[in-house]
């Protein structure tokens, strides 16, 4: 048995070494860097160990707090809507058999586009004077004189809407795969027992689908919390910092200021938050038997 275990370790050793070097090392480096005052390109700023002071500064940084709040609002709103729409789409896909492949192919289009291109395209569509989206809203009497991207509330809504457009299909496809993998017997029994459609969904389909739901949520939460590209292209974080997300702020700290120490501390905090959310989801997944 011992020999088998050793052999097993031997086989996974190359993959483990690779994983440690490409995932473990950067994380350790990030943690170390976050305790330094370190500007990558400014020789006037000496590289010095500052302990936890970068973290102390962050907690008092109103911009960091505001961008974190923006990220939380963006992530929770986008994920909830994507989940509801995704479930609806998945159920529709499950019900139809004719042309299903075509629908799936069409669903893939938004998520195959580069987020930066998606951002640029939607930026033009939201343009108050020339954009088709603003034009349609205006024609429908839903848009007044204030441009969508000028009002802080509607600007954030635009970012959320774009994310929903791009990523609902992913949610739908994962849930659809989950629906396809469900066993047939319980549903046949429910039918014999005279369960209604809603009862079947509530007491059978959804509970059995929970592992797929958790996987979809896990992937999307981790992804949405790191949103950068579409915000960068659509609003650049404006008006003011109304749509600036935590990762856009980090990007600016890293690539405008090259303030690596402070930026690393910020990334560590964001990483920790995402990790906690993911661990909670994993626990739920385990409890529901999907782990």
């Amino acid at each position, binding site marked *: 048995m011992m020999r088998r275990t050793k052999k097993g370790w031997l086989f996974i050793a190359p993959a483990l070494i690779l994983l440690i070097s490409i995932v473990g090392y950067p994380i350790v480096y990030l943690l170390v860097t976050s305790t330094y005052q370190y500007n990558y390109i400014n020789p006037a700023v000496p590289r010095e160990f500052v302990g936890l002071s970068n973290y102390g500064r962050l907690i008092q940084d109103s911009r960091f707090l505001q961008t974190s709040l923006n990220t939380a609002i963006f992530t929770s709103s986008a994920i909830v809507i994507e989940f509801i729409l995704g479930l609806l789409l998945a159920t529709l896909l499950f019900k139809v058999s004719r042309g299903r492949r075509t629908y799936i192919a069409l669903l893939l289009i938004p998520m195959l586009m580069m987020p930066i291109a998606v951002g640029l395209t939607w930026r033009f569509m939201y343009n108050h004077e020339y954009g088709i989206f603003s034009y349609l809203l205006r024609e429908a009497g839903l848009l007044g004189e204030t441009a969508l991207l000028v009002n802080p509330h509607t600007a954030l809504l635009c970012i959320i809407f774009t994310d929903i457009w791009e990523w609902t299909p992913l949610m739908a496809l994962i849930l659809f795969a989950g629906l396809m993998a469900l066993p047939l017997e319980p549903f046949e029994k429910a039918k014999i027992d005279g369960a209604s459609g809603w009862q079947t969904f509530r007491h059978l389909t959804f509970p059995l689908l929970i592992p797929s739901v958790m996987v979809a949520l896990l992937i999307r939460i981790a992804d949405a919390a790191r949103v950068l590209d579409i915000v960068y292209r659509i609003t650049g974080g404006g*008006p003011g910092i*109304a749509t600036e997300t935590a990762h856009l702020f980090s990007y600016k700290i890293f690539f405008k200021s090259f303030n690596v120490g402070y930026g690393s501390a910020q990334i560590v905090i964001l990483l920790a938050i995402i990790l906690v959310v993911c661990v909670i989801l994993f626990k739920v997944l385990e409890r529901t038997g999907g782990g």
Partner: protein
Amino acid sequence: MKEMRGVAPIMIGLVIILAIVVAAGVWYATRPSAKKVEINFLISPVPSIEKLVDTIPEFEAETGIDVTVTKVSYDDMCEKAALDVKSKTGTYTVFWVEPAHLGRLVGLEGLEPLEPLAERLDVDLTDFPQSYLNNFSYEGVLYAFPFESCLMVMAYRTDLFDELDLSVPTTWEDYKEAAIALDESGKVSSGTSIMGARHEALFCEYCNFLWGFGGSLFDETGYPSINTPEAVEALEFLKSLLPYAPAGTLTYTWTESGTAFIVGDIGTEIIFSDWTADMVNPETSGVIGKWAYAPIPGTGPTFFGGYGWAINAYASDEEKEAAFRFANWATSAEMQRRLIELGLTPTRISVMEDPELIAEYFYLSAYAETMDRAQPVMKIPVYFELMDSITMHLNAALSGIEDIQSALNSAQSEWEEIMSAADLI
């Protein structure tokens, strides 16, 4: 052992393929033609540069130097240049630099001083105005060949000014009155346009107003002074133009604002002169024969957005010399005469003052009137941080998220913090 017999030929085959690939790579890199000098030119595409790029084969044929062009967005270009000189790899040989970029790149010892090379290669730089050479110098050392003046000027619709009997504004109050009259005439979608997005463009535009109202970014000791009464007045004035600008103007960068003018939707606006290429191009312009430039109202300094070609200090000596020849060729009087047709704002005295060209290209006289007032915004290593901070607050103030005084106060505190951390104050 039996299993190994099946795997061994595959492994040997893979090793042979790998060896062939490596050998081919080594041969490719060391083949005789690869020993030609190669330079890598990092740019962000604008019409005049695109045209310059089209003519590069002529330079290659003439000199035997290979020129690779890397085109990226403006923001990416700034990042790549900084990372390249920091890593000392010399990946890019020729950089696009603006006076505001010099502080960061020179601070990293990443740019090659030009004068020693000019002396060695016997190149005369006196055809460039001294003020331009100063703009591209840092602490008295010249680092870039001025390629494009890229001045900020006032563009206006001559047809509508004539029709509405408006005179060309010379003061800010005149400018606002013209914007109101144009807006109310209904002959254009909006009287004026502002580059109001949270973007570098807003900072460039605001500087003209700030300086025009007597304010400045720094006081005489170099300390930030961006929340003075003059700065507040300038921003209040800029905000007062919003009702006469497109509703989406606070999402406009130079791209949207310039485009709105060239399609004929705007009566007058402050614009970068490198838009001339699109204004004179029948394929892109809806205002041909209906527009002109004039100096920005007032008598204060105006924003100098010029850019030039600098050489990477971490390139090899051979590459530096080739890069110098290329930059000299790209900014030669002959090249400027060719590019002027596309709207290039020339940087050589012999071209700027050529009476034939002045007679042929009507916009050159506005350039000449503006040139003396144009000044670079700042040349310090933390330009990008300062710019990001102030554009965020300017945009918030114009959007009504912050009031003007507190927005400028916040920007002032952030500038103090950034400059203090960089040991600049």
